[in-house]
């Protein structure tokens, strides 16, 4: 059933990356050997057509490879997939092959990596608060400079290139969009970075970029209407969803193995109905998530935005993975909270996927809008007092008004 993981023969298994996963997590960085293996496997090329330097795999093959890599090492998966799939797609979609092939090809060959510079320190997914701005450099050769700070960005501490969301400093008569993507070379003066230590996905580089008038060639500033960008972002939701499915599958597999091996009170855990119930529920839920994920990836890969479907998937799969890794910790008992144990890592990793890209509740808002409920309407929380339901200590003998002053 192709909503189960494929057999090992047909899917790259990343054995080296898998064997190093615990150490990679403990050290908090991706070893060079992982990148070598990624390059050799052809993983980075899967998502793009031959003319861009890719191998143009079909959606199911992409899915299998993504899940296999994420199962081997979720931190490595995030880093590689943000670069090759998400940033690669943003460049291919909003840039042009003519102008930006030289940016895209090194991402697919693995010579370089990219990050998607979107979030800023002041707020999460609310773009209205973003301040990073691109303006003409004023230098003789033309071009632009970019200034601002991006934070909590995958690959920011190590990437060569940032696909950066920025405001455009529009001169008079410029009727273009307010926003642009700036493809910023991070190997230049005017770029500072920092790392942000994080609970899970420890191997994944994560942190901030401080851009102090870093230079951007004219061709690498692509004006984009903000709404048009949202389709590009769904690649991020999708890659995170598949990370979650892989982490859940890994935790479930470990749970089955532990249940078969572990004896308590004279019986292997596998013989206990309570354990069976946890395994079966996880299996059914994960199957459902995987069917939805394959469908979403197929639709997305065929060019449909599939926004609603991918949003549903992101919310469900990431929260489910937290639940399944929690069950795995419970089945493993003290082993599951011992550092260095696979399940302890999955538990920390799983929560990162809920937060990563758009967080669940932000996505739920968008899903509701997609259901025809209209955009979110915020109203100050001041509508309780007139109803008589605020600040009224109540007494059976009518002390209401007397006590009210105190409240």
């Amino acid at each position, binding site marked *: 059933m192709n909503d189960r993981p494929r057999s090992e023969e047909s899917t790259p298994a990343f054995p080296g990356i898998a064997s190093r996963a615990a150490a990679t997590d403990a050290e908090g960085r991706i070893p060079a050997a992982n990148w070598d293996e990624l390059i050799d496997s052809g993983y980075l090329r899967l998502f793009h057509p031959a003319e861009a330097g890719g191998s143009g795999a079909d959606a199911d093959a992409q899915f299998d490879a993504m899940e296999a890599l994420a199962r081997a090492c979720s931190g490595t998966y995030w880093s590689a997939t943000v670069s090759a799939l998400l940033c690669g797609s943003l460049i291919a979609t909003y840039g042009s092959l003519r102008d930006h092939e030289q940016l895209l090809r090194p991402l697919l060959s693995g010579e370089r990596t990219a990050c998607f510079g979107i979030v800023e320190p002041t707020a999460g997914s609310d773009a209205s608060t973003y301040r990073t701005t691109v303006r003409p450099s004023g230098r003789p050769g033309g071009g632009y400079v970019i200034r601002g700070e991006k934070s909590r960005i995958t690959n920011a501490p190590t990437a060569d290139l940032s696909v950066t969301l920025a405001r455009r400093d529009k001169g008079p008569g410029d009727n273009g969009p307010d926003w642009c993507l700036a493809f910023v070379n991070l190997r230049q003066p005017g770029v500072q970075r920092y790392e942000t230590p994080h609970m899970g996905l420890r191997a994944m580089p994560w942190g901030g970029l401080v851009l102090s008038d870093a230079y951007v060639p004219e061709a690498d500033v692509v004006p984009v209407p903000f709404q048009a960008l949202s389709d590009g972002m769904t690649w991020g939701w999708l890659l995170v969803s598949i990370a979650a499915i892989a982490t859940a599958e890994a935790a479930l597999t470990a749970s089955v193995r532990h249940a078969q091996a572990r004896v308590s009170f004279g019986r292997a855990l596998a013989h206990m109905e309570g354990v069976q119930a946890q395994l079966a529920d996880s299996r059914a839920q994960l199957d459902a998530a995987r069917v939805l994920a394959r469908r979403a990836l197929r639709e997305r890969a065929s060019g449909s935005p599939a926004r609603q479907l991918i949003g549903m998937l992101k919310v469900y799969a990431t929260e489910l993975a937290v639940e399944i890794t929690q069950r795995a910790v419970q089945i493993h008992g003290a082993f599951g909270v011992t550092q260095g144990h696979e399940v302890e890592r999955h538990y920390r990793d799983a929560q990162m996927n809920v937060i990563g890209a758009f967080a669940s509740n932000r996505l739920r808002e968008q899903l509701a809008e997609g259901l025809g409920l209209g955009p979110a309407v915020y109203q100050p*929380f001041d509508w309780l*007092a007139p109803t*008589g*339901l*605020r600040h*009224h*200590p109540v*007494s059976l003998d*009518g002390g209401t*008004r007397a006590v009210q002053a105190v409240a």
Partner: protein
Amino acid sequence: MVLAQPELRTDPEAATGLGAGPLERSRELAGRLAWPTTAERDRDRSWDPALFAELARAEPGPSLAGPLVPASLGGGGSTAAEGLALLEGLAEGSRDPGLALAVAVHAVLATVPLRAHGTPRQRERYLPRMASGEWFGALSLRQTHGGAVAPAVTARPAPAGQGGWLLTGRLDLVAGAPVAHHFLVVAAHQGGGRTTFLVDRATPGLLVTEGGPAAMHTCPWGHLLLDGAHVDDGSVLGTVEGAAAEVEPLLAVLDWVYCSAPWLGVMRALARDALEAARGRELFGRPLTHDQATRFALADLATQVELAEGLLRRTASRLDDGGALPLQDAAAARLFVADAADRVTRAAAGLTGPLAGTGDGLAERAHRDALFLSRTGGGAQVLRPVVAASMLGLG
């Protein structure tokens, strides 16, 4: 239909120090008088006035019709905690959430606002007859969570000379309507302020019709149609335009606490039924009690009952201790009890109903009625903001 009498459990009050008594007595009484006809009354959606009269006049112990009415006015003079226990026992013994709701509305929700905000004249006129069960008091469960929903009844001053007020509007979900002597009605004035009125059934311009929700069939339900119904100044309960500070928050607390109370009894009965059902079934050639997943479900069910009991009783007893209960504590308790009732009814129904077609059908009735519980008192959409407001300093 041959059914075993509900098995009695040692009174939990004895353990919690509330003093033995009201819960056990009311449970015994309800088991004897009400339970034999519960399934039938539910099926026929019928109300048995004789049964209510018997419950109201039962001796000894606090009256079920007016436990919170002072003894000097003919009531039970019970504490708030005892009142809670009476409703728990009533529901546990009768296995009838609808009957217990009707009693809670009459004996607490319609009564306490008179005790708290009534004039001496109002208290003397209504409370003794309500406490004896002679007069049934009713109100709409749409009006027990303040002005969260737009007021359905308006009040305008009666023409000069006549005095008093003219009330116009419709109310549904009126628990007790078909048998009530009078109604508590909150009406909005043109300026937006709200006043509570005592509206006698005989008021000209008031039409009472039957009909109710798809749940709680043993509670007598009806609608009120007020078409310029004239009430005099003496029918104002509390201050004119004072409902938002007087009767409304009180009604909210009373609904959240006392309409939840029966569910402690219902949950205990369901927990017992679920245990019995598990003991009686075999699957895969083994007793179901050997199935670990079933054992876990029963353990969680018992835990929910214990948690809900503890929180709700603690909340009610604060009305005795300090005399004033913050609204948000009552809302938190209702939020918890409604959720626990939902969990417990589903878990119990998973073990006992709806395949059997045997027993008195409590699993199915409770599964249906727990949904009603979760939607009344404003439901989570009202309760959560009330709780959150106090945490956040907003609202």
